[in-house]
């Protein structure tokens, strides 16, 4: 995955898009002003956060917990609002080098 912006010279003739689902390489994570932080001790692995994520950013890890992929997460906070156990809290995003 590369988040480099494409120039006009990189576009195929006729503006043909050759790769299905190529938006997956586009970083929407830098829109975020709040990031979801999880407390997995409270998590019951119900997957409600997974099913309600509008950006398909939440994936199941090997242990069955649901982790947000910060490459795509726009920080809407739906997961934190819908979580029945209050596992997820939204924390303000700080300016870090490499992150923004």
């Amino acid at each position, binding site marked *: 995955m590369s988040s480099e912006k494409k120039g006009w010279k990189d576009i195929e003739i006729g*503006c043909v898009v050759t790769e299905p689902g190529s938006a997956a390489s586009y970083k929407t994570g830098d829109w975020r002003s709040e990031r979801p932080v999880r407390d997995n001790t409270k998590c019951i692995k119900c997957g409600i956060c997974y*099913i*309600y994520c509008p950006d398909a950013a939440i994936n199941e890890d090997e242990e069955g917990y649901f982790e947000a992929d910060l490459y795509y997460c726009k920080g809407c906070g739906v997961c934190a609002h819908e979580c029945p156990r209050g596992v997820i809290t939204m924390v303000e995003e700080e300016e870090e080098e490499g992150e923004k």
Partner: protein
Amino acid sequence: MEQEEELFLPRFITTEENFAAGHRACIGCGEALAVRHVCKALGKNVIIVNATGCIEIYSSLLPYTSWRVPWIHTLFENVGAVVSGVESAYKARIQKGKIEDRGVKFVGFAGDGGTSDIGLQALSGAMERGHDFLYCCFDNEAYMNTGIQRSSSTPYGAWTTTAPVGKKSIVGQTTWKKNMPEIAVAHRIPYVATACPSYPFDLMDKVKRGMEIEGPAYLHIFSVCPTGWRCPPEITVEIGRLVVETGIFPLYEVINGEYHLSVDFPKLKSVREYLKKQGRFRHLTEKDIERIQARVEEEYEKLRERASQKTAKGASQNKCAKFMTMDR
């Protein structure tokens, strides 16, 4: 513990994402959530015809595309015509022996403007000719991608940029929402349903049923738009739940003319709970809210009469009944 076991959701759905992450929908977009659920239910063997609108804008910005299934972009007005053309071409090529029948399904996507305003005549024609397709209308109750202009699907009292609130016009939108599912029912098509992504299993079951049924199927999906409705993005799903619980947007199915309520609440919540959460309704006076409440109750009673207190039988109801009525 038993309850926790039943609540394990991902077991019921595929992890396959045919609508790729990295799309550029607004933060907390209810429509993107609905499209994601619909694509999970559709699977790979489909051709999607997509009218102009938010979905097309945020999913296909050059040089990227979010689609992992065949997808055609059409104009606002002709999604019904294009989907019927694609379906007819497929059938004709099978008849001529050029291709084998692989059971491809045809789906039309459009917003509320592309369905109830601009695309209505093409959709009406496609339903009347009886093409085998599923039509999904993602209703966010205004023209959101061009900047929140009113459509015929905008509800009474809502603020939009072309139905502004001022000293003379104090309600915003002065007309009632066009009842698009009823227009589809009037075509006597085999399947019409309403759905909301806050009830994901109900939505996915309805998409599957609409695909399986031969002939035209119409699915009206309520899609919350935090940007245009002036509400915080995290309550997207909550608003979708409230709109059903207040009876403003009841979930029902019409199978061969027979009405079934997907979920029926013995007592509806007050519309106030739904309206107060959104900035587009902030100017409404008590009198306006009462007027909306009376209208909602009247419409809901009519629908309940048609369904004669029947609820939809089958897997959909059993699987998600608990999830739907769960006290949250």
